[in-house]
């Protein structure tokens, strides 16, 4: 088993005059879950499609599972997944959808039942997919990807439409796969998914890598964060906060007695201690924007209002 499932150097891909990927470097070891994030049009879908074999780089080197990829549909066996939603046929049942894939790829018949069980769809295996919810379709798409026992799993928004139970099941399946040595590359707009599943993350913006590394390092890129403070004595707490060093009291309105301050983590630690010393009880201290999301926004120059947080519709620049 090679150490790296994906090795990319200087990958460039253009569609006409649109440069979708511009000198992308990427290293993804086996047995890890790697997040791929970026704003709409960043090139994520192009990159994922390339990893599945839908296209090949115009320039640069791409190795998948140790095999160089120089033309379309030439990725090695052992790569599976979906991009822009799972490809399912609504007139067929869940089982028939999987059986078709298994038959086309020469996978054993038992892999169908196994995959259905792993995503928790055995009970509805004979129902037509047209009646499935978005979350069930996502799980069935994951099941289709699991049929060949992949060593590189490419997933685009796998948690889209999942209820908490389904999300937990999918997350568990992905984590199990990684533990068994499968490399998983996961694209998502939901930073909580990325945070929960990924050990490393690559952030794309306008076709270029603006960050690649461990999640903890990405969180550090967020700089000062805004925190929401709810205390037992709001008036006194405000005066303490306004006097604190390296803390900025923001004017943002809140719907209760809470207020918002901005500062780095060490400064917030000191503020917390001062509030306690002043006899003020801390009822809530939480970042207004999660650190990963804040880092995302800081690195991509985006604004919170421009970043979808629920069921995003990713129409990347292919």
């Amino acid at each position, binding site marked *: 088993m090679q150490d790296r499932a994906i090795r990319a150097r200087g990958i460039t891909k253009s569609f006409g005059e649109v440069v979708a990927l511009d000198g992308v470097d990427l290293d993804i070891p086996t047995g890890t879950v790697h997040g791929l994030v970026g704003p709409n049009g960043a090139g994520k*879908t192009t990159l994922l499609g390339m990893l599945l074999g*839908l296209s090949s780089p115009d320039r640069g080197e791409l190795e998948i599972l140790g095999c160089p990829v120089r033309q379309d*549909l030439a990725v090695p066996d052992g790569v599976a997944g979906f991009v*822009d939603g799972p490809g399912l046929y609504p007139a067929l049942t869940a089982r028939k959808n999987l059986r*078709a894939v298994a038959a086309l790829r020469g996978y054993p018949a038992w892999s169908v039942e*196994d995959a259905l069980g792993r995503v928790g769809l055995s009970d509805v295996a004979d129902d037509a997919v047209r009646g499935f919810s978005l979350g069930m379709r996502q799980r069935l798409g994951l099941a289709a990807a699991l049929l*060949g026992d992949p060593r590189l799993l490419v997933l685009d928004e796998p948690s889209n439409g999942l209820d908490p139970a389904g999300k937990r099941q999918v997350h568990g399946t992905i984590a199990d796969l990684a533990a068994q040595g499968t490399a998983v590359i996961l694209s998502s707009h939901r930073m909580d998914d990325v945070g929960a599943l990924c050990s490393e993350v690559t952030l794309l913006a306008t076709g270029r890598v603006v960050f690649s590394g461990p999640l903890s390092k990405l969180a550090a890129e967020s700089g000062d964060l805004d925190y929401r403070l709810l205390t037992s004595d709001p008036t006194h707490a405000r005066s303490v906060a306004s006097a604190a060093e390296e803390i900025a009291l923001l004017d943002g309105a809140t719907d209760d007695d809470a207020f918002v301050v901005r500062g780095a983590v060490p400064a917030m630690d000191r503020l917390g201690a001062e509030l306690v010393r002043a006899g003020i009880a801390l009822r809530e201290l939480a970042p207004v924007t999660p650190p990963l999301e804040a880092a995302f926004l800081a690195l991509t120059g985006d604004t919170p209002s421009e970043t979808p947080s629920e069921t995003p519709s990713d129409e990347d620049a292919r």
Partner: protein
Amino acid sequence: MSAPAPARPTTSGAAPLPASFARTLRFELVKLIAQWRIRVILLCCLLAPGVFVAATGQQTSLPADTVFGRWMALSGWAGPLVVLAFAGVWALPLLTSLVAGDVFAIEDRLGTWRHLVVTVRSPRRIFAAKALASLIVVLTLMIAIALSATLGGLLGVGSHPLVGLDGHMFGAGDVAGRVLLAWLVVVLPTLAYAAIGLLGSVTMGRSPIGLLLPALLALLVQVVQMLPLPAVVRLALPSNTFLAWRGLFTSPAQTGPIVVGLVVSLAWVVLATALAYRLFVRRDFTDLTNDGSARRIAVGGLLPLAALTAVSVAAVAVLTPVTGSGITRATLQDSLSTSFSRLYVLQTAQLHRPAVTEAAMQTASTCTKGGLAATSTTSTTSAADAADPTQTGPGNDWRCIVSWHTPGTTFVGQATFQLDVTPDGRYVADGDGPKEVNGSFPIHTAQGDAPNPLWQFDGLVDLLAPHR
């Protein structure tokens, strides 16, 4: 979480092999048959023609405006031919629209191209499998229609001889073979429409225009066929074979238009399929918004097919003797004389009169167009008449006088007919007296009361017959 999966063969990093063609074809068939629309269509094809034919055969009012319609109550073999005449105009192009016209577009609508391409790993095999799957389904639907109509006719009316389009009486065995042949003949033009459907489906993606392309072409052809176009253009259209099969029901068979139609249809099948293939394998499957474009369908599809039509017209003009409308006074007179004499023989037999033969009757016809009095008793046509442009072409203003000799006497009988001649060479002769010969009266036959065969009958002019 389910139990750990049993051990399975591990995949290697080897270069992938595409899915086998047989498995890809099977998958395409499964997808097609799983569509409720296809199932409903198949059910309709199995039931509707048979019910229509069986029910119509019991009616006193028959669809006489459709070729062979007037014979539906007398021969069960007329039913599948009436259905074929109708199907060739609308049903078969529509079926190809719904099957072949959607076989690629449905992947665009469902957003499954990426999944399919990654799974099969060969756009060429995907194209071949989709084309063959739609071909199989279209042929299945055709077979269902033909079988249903035939069974409806045979069960409802029975296997009886059928009068052809020149008055020739085809025995039950003979007509069965010809009915089968007629349906086989229209397979190729149906496939031409299916190929147009494939082209539209590939070219226009999610756009419904692509899906409707065969039906739109059928509509266009219907309009074109109503225009007074030269026969050379008419014969060079892919829809020609949907009419030319009628030549099988004359004796001898009018095979010229059938051969031309089959060659033209084959050319359309090959070109449209090749164009669709070329466009498909060049497609960017990372683009999910394939709605087609006017430029793409014009340059990639319509222009080459228009060029093929032009080449076909030129080839037909050079390789066949056809000129003008293909309908001349001479060919019409010949056709009418033949039909009349054969139907006169039939009428004589049905009325239990002394037998006559066609040869002994020495039938001749004189036809005029446009209200001119038809007074001549000879079918010979002068060069001046033949060159007269007013005495050619389709129209409902042909008036003909048929004359014949009564065997054993010097009596020369005469009967008048009004002819409604359509541009495709078919005509309906309507008896205009004397009423004892071509009037409307029933005749008692073994199959029940039948109308006088000389009262109204269908005929067919061979558009490729050498002109005199």
